[in-house]
Structure formats: structure tokens, C-alpha cells
């Protein structure tokens, strides 16, 4: 559309922006992570991950993040299949209804789960009304998973929904025409074709779930510490930036692995050259 000169001039602001606000900050965090208070190179802070129960927190974070991701995946597939099934009439309205809760402040709605799940909460009061046994869910790992699924389900639904709606209806008819029943159509055609969407959903859920400190603070009662909580405390209570940054660098290893995974299944790769 434009000549090379114009195009390069137009890209310059973004490149400067990216260097200043994406690369330099990441270098800062790595720098703090691998130096001590005198500015000398040291891996002492990194090795702290093996002490003070930090490893247990990391392990718990990975576990809960994995569980939440799997739950999101299992919930999202049928939901998206139903939503993309009839592509007319009220699908838009149902989709809008699905997006609407996102406009409620996420801190407040996570808080509301406290009210629902606590020992004298809404669910248990209902159980008592129905003479059913009550259960204690608040401040457990289960409550944190509920919070994570609630907060991050849209990130799974969106890419899955997009990749499902990209599948031409005639592809599904072709499978049926060749003798496949609904299950065979799902496992042999729909599932393989939506893997890029699922992968992008998985990374979009796994990373925030792995690194959150808010959900665990609100629904874990401050007793269940995730790696995010520990990093946050290093900055807001301990004021030990070097330790905080060192732990962040360890988190970044997971993030980079995730980015590579996403890149391998990049849905944009199929975009036509315009």
C-alpha cells in the first residue's frame, strides 16, 4: 500500500515502544533476579526456590493451574459445540450473555464466591434447607480451583469458539456422509481441527492461573500460598526485590515454554498473504 520508506517510518514508534516497555523491563527483572544487593552476579536468590517451602508453593501452583486448565477445557468444548451448532437466531444473544459477566469487577465476583462457598454460605444454607449434609469448601484448594475456572473460563471459550466456528459445516456433513456418527465426527474431525484453538486456550488459562495471587488470597484464606502470593509478598511486605525478581524469572521459564507451545500451533500461520 505504501512504499518501504513510509512503512518503516510507521513501524518506528512501535519498535521504540516495544524496546522501552517490553524488552528493557524484562531485562530489568532478569538483572535483579541474578544479582545481589551490591549488584554482583549471584544465583543465591534463584536457589532460594529450594528453601522456605517455595518449591511446595510452586508445585501447588502448577497442580492447581493444571486442574483448572483441564476443567476449563472440559467445560468449554461442549459449551462451544452447542453455541456454534445453530449459527442463526439467538446464538448472538447467548454469546452476549456469556460475555456480559466479564463487565462485573473480577475482584468483587471472586469475593462473591466466598459468600457462596463459606461454611455459612449460600450453598450450605441451601443444603440445610433441604436437610442435606453441609460441606466445607472455602479456604481449600477446591475453592481456589472454582475461582480460577470462574475467572479464566472465557479465555478458553473464546479461542475454542473461534476455531470451531471456522470449521465449515460441510466438513462435518462430509464426515457424516462417509459414515461417521457424532462421536466419531468429534474425535476424528472436530478435535484435530480445533487443536490450535485449544492450545491457545490452554496457554491463556494456564499462565494466569499459575501466577495469580488474588484468587488464592480471596478464596484460600491466606493459608494456601501460591508462588504468586510469595512473589507479591516479597514486593509489598518483605521489600526484597531481588528474591521477588529471582522467583519471577523462574516463573518466566514456564511462560517461555508456553509461548513456544503457542508459536508451534500459531493459528495466524494459516492467514493468507495479503
Amino acid at each position, binding site marked *: 500500500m505504501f512504499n518501504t520508506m513510509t512503512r518503516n517510518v510507521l513501524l518506528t514508534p512501535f519498535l521504540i515502544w516495544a524496546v522501552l516497555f517490553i524488552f528493557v523491563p524484562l531485562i530489568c527483572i532478569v538483572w535483579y533476579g541474578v544479582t545481589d544487593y551490591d549488584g554482583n552476579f549471584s544465583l543465591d536468590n534463584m536457589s532460594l526456590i529450594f528453601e522456605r517451602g517455595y518449591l511446595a508453593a510452586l508445585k501447588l501452583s502448577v497442580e492447581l493451574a493444571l486442574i483448572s486448565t483441564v476443567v476449563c477445557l472440559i467445560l468449554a468444548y461442549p459449551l462451544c459445540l452447542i453455541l456454534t451448532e445453530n449459527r442463526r437466531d439467538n446464538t448472538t444473544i447467548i454469546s452476549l450473555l456469556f460475555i456480559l459477566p466479564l463487565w462485573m469487577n473480577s*475482584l468483587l465476583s471472586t469475593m462473591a464466591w466466598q459468600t457462596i462457598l463459606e461454611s455459612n454460605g449460600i450453598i450450605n444454607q441451601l443444603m440445610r434447607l433441604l436437610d442435606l449434609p453441609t460441606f466445607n469448601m472455602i479456604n481449600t484448594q477446591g475453592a481456589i480451583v472454582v475461582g480460577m475456572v470462574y475467572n479464566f473460563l472465557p479465555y478458553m471459550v473464546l479461542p475454542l469458539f473461534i476455531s470451531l466456528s471456522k470449521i465449515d459445516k460441510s466438513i462435518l456433513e462430509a464426515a457424516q456422509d462417509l459414515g461417521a456418527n457424532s462421536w466419531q465426527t468429534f474425535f476424528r474431525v472436530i478435535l484435530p481441527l480445533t487443536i490450535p484453538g485449544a492450545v491457545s486456550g490452554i496457554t491463556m488459562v494456564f499462565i494466569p492461573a499459575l501466577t495469580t495471587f488474588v484468587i488464592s488470597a480471596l478464596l484460600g484464606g491466606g493459608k494456601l500460598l501460591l508462588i504468586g502470593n510469595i512473589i507479591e509478598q516479597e514486593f509489598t511486605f518483605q521489600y526484597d526485590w531481588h528474591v521477588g525478581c529471582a522467583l519471577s524469572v523462574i516463573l518466566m521459564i514456564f511462560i517461555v515454554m508456553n509461548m513456544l507451545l503457542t508459536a508451534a500451533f500459531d493459528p495466524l500461520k494459516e492467514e493468507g498473504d495479503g
Partner: protein
Amino acid sequence: MRYIKKIYLATIFLFLYAPIGVLIAQSFNASRYRGHWTGVTLDWYTKLFNDERIADALSNTLSIGLLSAGIATILGLITCVAMKEFSRKWRATFMSITNVPILNADIVTGISLMLLFMGLGLKLGYVSILLAHIVFNVPYVILCIMPQLMTLDKSFYEAALDLGASPFKAFASVILPELRPSIFAGFLLAFTMSADDFIITHFTKGAGVDTLTTEIYAELKIGIHPEMYALSTLVFFCVLIFVILFAINRRKLKHIEEAI
């Protein structure tokens, strides 16, 4: 099978709307304690308009949201237009750079920006929050605009040039109107992300400056002021009305289209 589908949809919607129902109920609860129901009141709605802390936080949230979304939209649009002109390989590289703030964890982005601002000697406050919000908003804008720009038919632009328009004029009069839906979507998404962000704001804000989310987080320990529930309820219903109007409008348009 149809019933199973309906029940499934209903269960998911119950899961999504249960906390919202609880919040709305709490905004009318006479007791200021969560989960303790003592009767219906509208007190919190009247008090809401006299609460200066909430008013401050709300104005910060709105102004940071609008400014960051606006600046991110302009920067994102320029970047998209430039990226379209590069080969597929370069474009993929640039896209993966733009995606870093989305793929990265909020906590890492927040901390890294805080370190940058402190290193630059920038006092943490309104400006640092604004900059941080632009950083994570740009990729959302690009994700919205880029697909539509890529599918845009070049011939319109070339026709405008052929008819004597300058490149800039041709862009403004032909490409920009075509892109309007995705620009609007990008702006809206950016504003929503900004208004709902807590983690990055938490790390890049200074003492004395609060947005709604950081104000709520601060109140968590001492108990949330029910005025907050009232405010969220109001916001929720505003969006709901907007969505309903949008849906009705769409339906009408569809009917008109069918009639033709």
C-alpha cells in the same frame, strides 16, 4: 439430547451469574456485612454519590481507561498498517513481539514495568499506571484490527489513488471507514481490560492514587464498603441495557434485511 444441551447451557449460566446475583443482592442488603442478610435498603446507592474515595477511584478508572485505550488504538492502528506491508515472515515476528504482554503473566509484566519506572526515576502514580495500561492494551487492539486489515481489498485504496487522492487522503477516506468496526472493537476491548485490571495496576501505582480495583483490594482486608456493590450493580445494569439495545437493534436490522 436437546434437553441435555439446554440443561448444560443453564448450568454454565448459573455458574457464571451466581456471583453476580450475590453482588446485586448485597448492594440492597441493610447489613454492611457480607453474607448477613438483615433486610432491603437503598442506602448504599444514596451514599455512593457522597463517597469521595469511590468518586476519585471511579474517575481515575474512567480517565485511565479512556486515555490508555485511545492511545493504544492509535499506536496499534499505525503499527498494523505498517506490519501489513512486510513479508509474512517479518509480520509473524512483529506479531509475536506484540503478543508478549498478553502471553506474559500479569505479575511479571507489572513487576518489570515497576522496575523500569523506578529505574527511570518516574514517580509511581497516575502517569505510571497510564503507561502500563497502554503497554498491555496495544496487543489487544492489534489483535482486533490486524485480521480485518489483512482481508481488506486493496483495490478500493488503489481506486482512490487512481481517482487522484493522495495516499494519506486515500487511507483516511477509504481504509479507515472500512476498518471502523474492528477499531471500535479494539478500543472497547482495551477499555474493558484497563477497567478490570488489578495486578499490573497494583504494582505500578503509587500511594494516594487508586483505581476501583485497587480500592476494592485495599478494602478487602477491612471489609468492602457496600457502596462498591451498589456501583458494580449500576455498571452491570448499564452494560446489560446496552447489550439488550444492541441485540434488539440487530434483530430489527435482520428483519429489515429479510424483508428486502
